[in-house]
């Protein structure tokens, strides 16, 4: 990944937060809401975008008869996230040389 070609997924703080949270393991919608502090509508829209771009997978199940949406990272999403963190570290390293 290069500075000139950073994907859209990493250009919003909320999308970056969602990806960082899901990097630690699958999360429920409520968990993501607690972690990011975003509203239902905004969070839902960002998750949908990331899902369309192939970064996330959403699964709808039931827990104690209540609907539960779980979000997890795809292998593509994990790889892209790793590359983005490497790019950030490279920028900081080069600037502090």
């Amino acid at each position: 990944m290069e500075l000139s070609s950073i994907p859209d997924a990493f250009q919003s703080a909320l999308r970056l937060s969602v990806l960082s949270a899901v990097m630690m393991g699958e999360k429920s919608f409520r968990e993501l809401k607690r972690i990011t502090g975003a509203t239902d509508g905004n969070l839902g829209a960002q998750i949908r975008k990331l899902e369309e771009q192939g970064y996330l997978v959403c699964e709808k199940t039931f827990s104690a008869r209540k609907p539960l949406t779980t979000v997890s990272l795809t292998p593509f999403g994990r790889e892209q996230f790793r590359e983005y963190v490497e790019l950030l570290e490279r920028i900081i390293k080069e600037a502090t040389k």
Partner: protein
Amino acid sequence: MTDPKDTLKSATEDLALIRNTMDRSRYHFDFLSTVFLIYGAVMLAGEILAHILSVCGVRDNAPGFFIVGYLPYVFVFLLFVFYFVMRRKFIKSETLYSLHLYDVWGVVLFFLPFLSLCFSLSRFFVPGTEKVENVGVIGILFCIKTLLFLFAALITLLFTAIALRDTPLLLIALICLSLFLFVLFWGFFVGYPRTIDFFYGELITRTQFLERAVYLLYVVLGLYLKIRKYK
């Protein structure tokens, strides 16, 4: 063209955001560390009290017998109620994966004291402990109980290590220690002579020692998870 200073600022902010979010996304061990700590401390205190009462010679008196035999179970029951209430709260926000983890810990922590209570009550249903064959049966029950305790400790540690992801050395050391004790006691269980002297001597001493070691392990685990939270 983007200003390098802006690029650096933006990169630093993004990395800070990633770190903060990842920190907030870790499993919350606060509640579980309290459960481990209280459980281990109460059961260990019960064992120490039993030893003191035994030394004073009042362990088998009516109040002494109740305190030693059943009071720890009352505490465990109260702890179970606390665990159950907290679990109901978790259903609303946690993932199925973390809920399953909580369930495994719950089974390990609370099913075993229940099993232990059943074993101690079983003595009333095996009359005549002066007979060699009956002592043999009770001895086997004692050994199975201790093996289950060690196995449960092993499972608890393994699941904690999996949930922590960055498995620390302390947990690896505790896992190795419990595995070693389990294998050692298994060997002892297979080959021990089923005699009255051996039962009232070495077998009881060994099972008591191992149970205390397991309770201490839960205290260490609870303390470790609490300290880790503030790091």
